């Protein structure tokens, strides 16, 4: 590979105007920060929605006057109606999965650090990179607009609102959950409120998001394969890069399927095709004659063919960051680097063969359920391998407990807590009672939501000094960590038992069923824990803003880490390495090398003649040198 030939393609001069520097920037670092800001905005919206949902579930029928003022149609008199609740379910899920869990880990941190960690000056396609961010932002604005178009009678009945599909006025946004199952999502107004313009905009937003992610994925893959600096062999890359690379491959293969499915769904809704709508549907005594012959299950196959890899898109970067940070603060090489790389591959590959476990009870062939079930439990094996290796990394370590490390250890704990119940849900038999209960909710929130977010918290506390030249406040960081860790356990562990009792998800109220009565104290407990945990995040936001301006100054390598982002200034110059691309001599995690002057050896540290050879594992294979 020749680095030189690529320089002409991606090199661009440092911008001088404010707009080119901070708004329409081609610099991967600025774009990364833009993605992170987008995710921080989106997660505020998503968290607020979850608090509103908890209020409604714990204290149904209570009048919250502020709600009544803000959403006169969704909460008349301040009492949330079921339509409002369900649109919150839909918007919370969609915003969190797409605009938080997909943007921050990959578009944010991946964008900022992948080029630096492989010793490149920028992404392979800077313009494409800029476009992928702005397209994603457009998607976010479209989904926010869904709330107002669907729920506001004036807008819904305006010419534009009607052209977009009209609105029910009574609700706040689309109703369909983040999975948007057809035919509920496919037939429009006959299916009830929340199926008008809001649903169209929901689909359009996701389609736009798919395009943005695809552009990003192409860029990541090209950059990683072609732009590694001299000496940066694949097996010398930090595990973060492996994670971002695999994530990009998953995104490249799965988002087109969702994009296609979204377009088909939109066609069903707008021009009367019948991909997902069977004939002879009856709503309120009138037969829907506009459709015939479609399959509702086809939507589920297409959606989950994307939806399951999406889970790994959300969490793989967190795994990468965790491995990276564990090793750095353990002052010890990653245990089983090679096994970790293979485990990432195995998870990514198997992730494409297990989508059917979301559909055991959907009416698809029970024989395929058997196949999906066995493949699903197989995916636990590489996940367990990663956990063992994380523990192996900590074994015999000399651990420094700073906030990034606390969150990385929290990630391991939560990944185990959330992932392990996959052993229950992956069995088709056990899915019979468990499907669509709070047990499922608890499982995926812990593993895909909270664990991924802990990976991102670890990442932000770790890389903030590099990005802004200042530390995040350590005391506030620790306060944030302790309350959040305990908080998320208190929120999500009781949800498992709710699911065992049989509590169905996506219920606006639990007041109708006697078998759920006994759960009320747990429901209230969870809500209180959720409110406290969400409020604690304000400490984190304050810390971010405060530290950008007032944080303690950080040098080039404040954590005494080994990878390439730490050889350059904090923050790095426009071209990352001030014109001199680094040359790499060793693997990424050379800590505690016997005989070395420090307890860490930078990747750029050349081998000295006569010095002990490093990077040779004692088990006979060499995981780091080629």
């Amino acid at each position: 590979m020749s680095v030189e030939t690529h320089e002409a393609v991606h090199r661009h001069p440092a911008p001088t105007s404010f707009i080119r520097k901070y708004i329409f920037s081609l610099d991967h670092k600025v774009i990364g920060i833009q993605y992170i800001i987008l995710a921080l905005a989106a997660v505020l919206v998503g968290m607020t929605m979850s608090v509103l949902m908890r209020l409604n579930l714990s204290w149904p029928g209570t009048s919250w006057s502020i709600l009544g003022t803000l959403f006169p149609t969704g909460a008349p008199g301040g009492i949330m109606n079921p339509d409002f609740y369900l649109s919150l379910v839909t918007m919370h899920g969609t915003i969190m999965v797409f605009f938080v869990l997909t943007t921050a880990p990959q578009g944010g941190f991946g964008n900022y650090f992948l080029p630096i960690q492989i010793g490149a000056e920028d992404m392979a396609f800077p313009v494409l990179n800029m476009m992928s961010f702005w397209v994603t932002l457009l998607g976010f604005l479209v989904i926010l607009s869904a709330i107002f178009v669907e729920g506001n009678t004036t807008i819904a009945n305006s010419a534009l609102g009607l052209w977009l599909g009209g609105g029910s006025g009574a609700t706040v946004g689309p109703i369909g959950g983040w999975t948007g199952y057809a035919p509920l999502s496919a037939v429009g107004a006959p299916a009830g409120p929340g199926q008008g313009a809001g649903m169209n905009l929901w689909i359009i937003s996701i389609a736009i998001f798919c395009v943005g992610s695809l552009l990003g994925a192409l860029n990541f893959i090209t950059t990683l394969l072609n732009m590694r600096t001299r000496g940066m062999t694949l097996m010398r890359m930090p595990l973060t890069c492996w994670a971002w690379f695999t994530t990009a491959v998953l995104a490249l293969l799965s988002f087109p399927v969702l994009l296609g499915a979204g377009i088909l769904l939109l066609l069903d809704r707008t021009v009367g095709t019948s991909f997902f709508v069977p004939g002879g549907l009856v709503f309120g005594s009138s037969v829907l004659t506009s459709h015939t012959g479609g399959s509702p299950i086809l939507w589920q196959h297409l959606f989950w063919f994307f939806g399951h890899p999406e889970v790994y898109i959300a969490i793989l970067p967190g795994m990468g960051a965790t491995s990276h940070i564990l090793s750095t603060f353990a002052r010890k090489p990653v245990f089983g680097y090679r096994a970790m790389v293979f485990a990432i591959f195995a998870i990514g590959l198997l992730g494409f063969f297990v989508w059917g476990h979301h559909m055991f009870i959907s009416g698809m062939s029970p024989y395929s359920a058997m196949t999906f079930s066995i493949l699903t439990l197989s995916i636990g094996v590489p996940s367990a391998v990663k956990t063992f290796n994380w523990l192996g990394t900590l074994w015999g370590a000399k651990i420094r407990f700073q906030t990034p490390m606390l969150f990385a250890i929290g990630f391991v704990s939560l990944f185990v807590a959330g992932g392990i119940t996959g052993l229950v849900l992956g069995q088709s038999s056990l899915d019979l009672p468990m499907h669509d209960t709070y047990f499922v909710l608890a499982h995926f929130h812990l593993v895909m939501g909270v664990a991924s977010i802990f990976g991102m918290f670890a990442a932000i506390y770790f890389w903030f000094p590099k990005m802004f030249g200042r530390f995040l406040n350590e005391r506030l960081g620790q306060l944030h960590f302790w309350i959040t860790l305990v908080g998320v356990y208190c929120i999500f562990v009781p949800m498992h038992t709710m699911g065992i009792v049989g509590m169905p998800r996506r219920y606006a109220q639990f007041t109708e069923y006697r078998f759920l009565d006994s759960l009320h104290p747990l429901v209230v407990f969870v809500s209180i824990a959720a409110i406290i945990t969400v409020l604690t995040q304000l400490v984190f936001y304050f810390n971010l803003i405060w530290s950008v301006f007032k944080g303690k100054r950080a040098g080039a390598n404040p954590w005494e880490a080994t990878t390439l982002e730490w050889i350059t200034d904090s923050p790095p110059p426009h071209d990352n390495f001030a014109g001199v691309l680094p040359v790499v001599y060793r693997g990424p995690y050379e800590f505690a090398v016997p005989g070395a002057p420090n307890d860490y050896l930078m990747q750029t540290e050349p081998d000295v003649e006569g010095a002990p050879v490093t990077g040779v594992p004692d088990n006979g294979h060499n995981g780091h040198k080629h």
Partner: protein
Amino acid sequence: MGRALAVIIWILTLGSVSLFFVKKWWFPEAISSHAAALDRQFMLTIIVVGIAFTAAQVGLGYVVWKFRDRGQSDRAVYTHGSNRLEVIWTVVTAIIFIGLAVMGQTVWASLHFNKAPVGSFQVEVVAQQFQWNFHYPGKDAVFGRTDPSMIDDSALNYIGLDSTDPNTKDDVVHSVIAVPAGQPVELLLRSRDVIHNFWVPQLRFKQDLVPGMVIRVHFTANRPGKYELACAELCGQFHFRMKSFMLVLPPEEHQALMALSQDQFQTKVTELLTKYELPAYQQ
């Protein structure tokens, strides 16, 4: 700090595990034939999960306690891993996880790989937004013809029964499902509009009703009583109150009920709904 973190992790682990151990909130008592095997498989799985969860968390707590930086002068252990360990834990977890998956097939196969036994009691289920309709074939055990175009909610013809078909004469449609205790039941699941899901917690059974499809499933309910029936697939605005009841009746009582005409049937079901009480749920 390391010690504090270890202790917190252990406390969280203890709290989590005890929530499952005390079983204050747990499955309602099962009433179906397949439930015993299913509950056993669940317990087996949850024990494996509990052991793995506890081991991992205790181990995590241990390493952060033990290997914290105490300001000692010696460095961490310099190792890049161990192929032997990798092989061991890969093989061991593969055996346990895939073993569980294979064992978990039994209940599924018993319900879904076999057709309903001959002589099963058949009910056609037609779900519509926020309402259940159960279509009983009557004495002749033959379902009358239905046609979506004949659906007329105002005339209470929710499933589009064709009154000109002689087989419909003794058919009954009701919002409550009544099944005989101890006898296999076959459901023919259909939906009028969107996807719904038939869910009775005591049955340990759940199945989507998909418009455009007829899905046949079977189970046997053994204990007479009245049980709550819920929709478990988001179906729109009032999903949370798409509720009905399942009556499991002693065979004679059930047989007598099935011989009734639509009007008598309705009166009788109302009577039965008061006669039978919901299980005494733990509070």
